[in-house]
């Protein structure tokens, strides 16, 4: 959470010659981070574990410990504590509380307050921490909360029916209107306070009830300082989506030992500013007072984690400055944890952190680790994926990253994973295919007249019963403003560069134009597809892991032919609708003396082929070539009706 600390207010508690710039720098390096210092106000980020720092006093306490490590003198001024009688029963209020919800409950009646505007200095300080002044009573509560980090509430005492309070968990469906005028329907289990008439007067720890709020006619107030169960507060604040400065503090677990300081400051300010008079009996129900907790940690443990040698005095000085007490038994340290740190100091590593940060992270040396190296990852996929991307880039492909979350119409009807809390209906499902995203990417560039090729490598998410979904790494691409032959050539070239032996088999399929789809197959298993979509884009997708299995990293070696081939060109005429891909396959199957065949020209139904006749250990004679040629021509005539 981010807090604002005015420099003059901080110096009420911190006596130091250090300048504000020096304070900001030292805090950032060894404590809470000061994001900026502007108009004499520190903007400080307090982490969730350090709610004890979320106040003027908390920051003063940290600064008083940190500044001396940088050579600046600093002393902390204590919060004044008035001596009042704390009693578990008082005459003016009857209470019954659920102690699992409220760890410390304290209140005091203050009579004859005069409601008015706060004095200028108080209003100014509130404005400096971003709080709007309202009236002296409310302002004093807010002032105390910012000063010591303990929320304080005030009820109009006369609005508490029968002077009775029952603090209990709410029932499901109960309603309460908070003092900002909003009505909430409660989920059940929220901490609420009911008065003697059974009406709810407080949504505890979040915001007071409208019906018990202080107003211009208020004469007597009940000053109210509590420690609530952080988990309950957080649940309520999350379920009602209602955050207040108070709830943000309570949900992080406050120190019950802070309560008397809140009461004390409250009585002092209310009497000074509003003229009110506090009852001499203060109600304080505190069933389980803080028991000092100790953490044991060895010197060797500390040194091993930080990586440096330390001496015992250095360690004790640091911890003492932070409010811990220490006792060494040889090289073992017994650390006694103050109440305000009991929430975040749980074990030896937490002590290590305190020592290391005040020693100064900047003073710790920097060295790479030595030791054994781990084994490589078996069957690592990354090099292959990088290779694919680079090959496609080489062919002019442009890589894109699109959002894996899509709308309902973009996923398989057979099933896709849906989000419980999507940002919108357009990103409600985890995609099962990359094609809708790529088509959209194509459409996004509809103004482009030149050919372009977009591709993406990303997971698709296939539901898998009660298990996590299968994440299938998929390569997909879209080619626009091009021809079937050119687009197909890209796929063929990719497969060739990967030394993959995948076949392209014509097969009809949804979304593709009739007769314009090819399935990528490897030993009868379908691992991808390519074709022309109804909108004229050429789309392909391939499952990357399957592709990897059909590929070899380096090409195979075949001995180079020693004897020259005989090369000849033949032009043949084929009937309409002959599939030339099949013709070429058939030609290749005729005789192994035919080393290679390629199409070098076409005109209407005439195709000119170039044939390479080759024998591995001799030069072929004319008659040998003639015999192969005749077989080819005969086959082409028999099977395809082709003639020369």
């Amino acid at each position, binding site marked *: 959470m981010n807090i604002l600390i005015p420099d003059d207010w901080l110096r009420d508690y911190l006596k130091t010659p250090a300048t504000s710039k020096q304070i900001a720098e030292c805090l950032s390096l060894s404590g809470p981070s000061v994001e900026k210092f502007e108009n004499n106000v520190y903007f400080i980020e307090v982490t*969730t574990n350090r709610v004890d720092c979320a106040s003027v006093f908390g920051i003063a306490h940290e600064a008083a410990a940190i500044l001396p490590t940088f050579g600046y003198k600093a002393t902390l001024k204590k919060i004044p504590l008035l001596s009042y009688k704390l009693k578990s029963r008082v005459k003016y209020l009857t209470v019954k509380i659920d102690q699992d919800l409220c760890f410390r409950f304290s209140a005091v009646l203050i009579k004859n307050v005069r409601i008015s505007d706060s004095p200028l200095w108080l209003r100014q300080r509130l404005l400096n921490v971003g709080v709007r002044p309202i009236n002296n009573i409310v302002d004093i509560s807010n002032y105390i909360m910012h000063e010591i980090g303990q929320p304080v509430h005030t009820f109009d005492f006369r609005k508490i029916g029968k002077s009775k309070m029952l603090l209990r968990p709410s029932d499901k469906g109960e309603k309460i209107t908070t003092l900002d005028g909003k009505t909430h329907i409660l989920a059940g289990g929220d901490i609420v306070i009911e008065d003697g008439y059974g009406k709810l007067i407080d949504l505890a720890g979040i915001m007071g009830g409208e019906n018990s709020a202080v107003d211009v006619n208020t004469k007597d107030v009940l000053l109210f300082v509590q420690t609530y169960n952080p988990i309950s507060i957080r649940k309520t604040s999350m379920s009602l989506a209602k955050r207040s400065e108070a709830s943000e503090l309570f949900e992080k677990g406050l120190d019950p030992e802070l309560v008397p300081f809140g009461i004390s400051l409250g009585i002092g300010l209310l009497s000074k500013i509003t003229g009110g008079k506090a009852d001499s009996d203060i109600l304080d129900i505190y069933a389980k007072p803080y028991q000092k907790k100790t953490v044991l940690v060895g010197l060797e443990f500390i040194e091993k984690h*930080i990586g440096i040698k330390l001496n015992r005095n250095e360690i004790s000085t640091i911890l003492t400055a932070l409010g811990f007490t220490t006792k060494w038994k040889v090289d073992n340290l017994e650390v006694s944890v103050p109440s305000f740190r009991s929430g975040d100091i749980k074990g030896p590593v937490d002590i290590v952190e305190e020592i290391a940060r005040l020693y100064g992270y900047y003073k710790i040396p920097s060295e790479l680790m030595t030791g054994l190296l*781990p084994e490589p990852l078996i069957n690592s996929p990354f090099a292959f994926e990088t290779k694919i991307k680079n090959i496609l880039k080489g062919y002019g492909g442009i890589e894109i990253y699109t959002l894996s979350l899509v709308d309902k119409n973009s996923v398989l009807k057979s099933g896709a994973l849906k989000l419980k*809390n999507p940002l919108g209906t357009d990103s409600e499902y985890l995609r099962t295919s990359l094609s809708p995203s790529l088509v959209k990417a194509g459409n996004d560039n509809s103004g482009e007249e030149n050919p372009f090729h977009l591709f993406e490598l990303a997971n698709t998410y296939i539901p898998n019963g009660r298990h996590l979904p299968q994440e299938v790494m998929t390569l997909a691409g879209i080619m626009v403003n091009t021809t079937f032959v050119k687009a197909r050539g890209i796929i063929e070239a990719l497969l060739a560069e990967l030394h993959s032996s995948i076949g392209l088999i014509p097969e009809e399929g949804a979304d593709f134009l009739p007769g314009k789809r090819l399935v990528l197959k490897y030993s009868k298993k379908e691992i991808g597809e390519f074709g022309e979509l109804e909108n004229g884009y050429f789309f392909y997708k391939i499952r990357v892991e399957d592709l990897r299995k059909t590929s070899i990293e380096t090409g195979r070696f075949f001995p180079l032919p020693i004897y020259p081939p005989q090369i000849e060109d033949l032009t043949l005429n084929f009937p309409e609708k002959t599939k030339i891909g099949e013709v070429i396959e058939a030609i290749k199957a005729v005789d192994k003396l035919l080393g290679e065949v390629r199409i070098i020209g076409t005109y209407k139904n005439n195709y000119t082929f170039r044939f390479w006749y080759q024998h591995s250990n001799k030069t072929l004679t004319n008659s040998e070539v003639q015999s192969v040629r005749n077989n080819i021509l005969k086959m082409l005539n028999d099977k395809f009706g082709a003639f020369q």
Partner: protein
Amino acid sequence: MWIDEILMREDILSLKNQAISQINLAKTSEELEEIRISYLGRSGKLTELFKNISALKSDDKKLNGLLLNQAKATLTSTIASRKNSLKESARDWFDPTVPGTKPGIGHLHLVTQAIDEIARTFTQIGFVRVRYPEVEWDWFAFEGLNMPKDHPARDEWETFFVDALPSPDFGQMVLTPHTSSGQIREMQRVKLPPVRMINIAKCYRRQIDASHVPMFHQFEGLVVDRNISVVNLKGTLDYFARNFFGKERKTRLRPFHFQFTEPSFEVDVSCGICDGRGCKLCKEGWLELGGAGMVHPLVLKNGGINPDKYTGFAFGWGVERTFMMKAGLSIPDIRLLYSSDLRFLKQF
């Protein structure tokens, strides 16, 4: 048939001189081309002499061959220099300033470029690149990382939940909000340290504005071994900063808090623009990189590693942010990275 070798030598010299004088008189490149053909063409005068060489005795062959080659070279260069000395109008017109015909230029996405470079930097010091599920159980993403349900620390991770039956052992199904969910998976895979992991993956958070996208990338380093300390974390971060950002760059640690590391740090890198002196682009000479820390003993335990024997550190940062800091790119709206606008994609 024997040819007089003396006569041949003279033939060569006189042919050469004759050709040179013709070349020097030529006025156009056409004329020069005619001359070239008449001497050096397939049945040119000099070419004819080459054919006679085979009939010579071997000593003479060598000498005459040398002379012929010299003559040929002289004529070729004389023709070329004469061509250049002709007036521009008499030369063949050619404009070398016409732009070339480029092949289609492909582009790898910025994120891919960033990931490749980050992976390369860490694998150089023995890190093993891995990746783990993008759709993950709550336990790996939070609970096992010492972040119980209802913990305020979870606020930082605006998590997407999948509408699926929860696992009895691991809780709800979520889209992983950070690469830290790979920490326990990696410890479980390796079982016995050393662990040196670099996990680079897609992450998802429920947020969208000019500086946030619901899908982004992180890289997570995890090192677990005997005697791993803050010193080694600093060493690794400095190594990364020097390699990735430049050899003058340094890192520093500031206190922070994560539930799964203790101590936890915020890592800054010195600003490359002002060399750490402080400028408009940085904060007092430093730029924020991201979080790091010493692995919490509970997390080691949850990963099946004995925290009494082993210690470790971890860090996890945004790929996009880190790379933009390196490249000095200031892309005002991060959403542009995940758009398909060719005008954007072709810039990288």
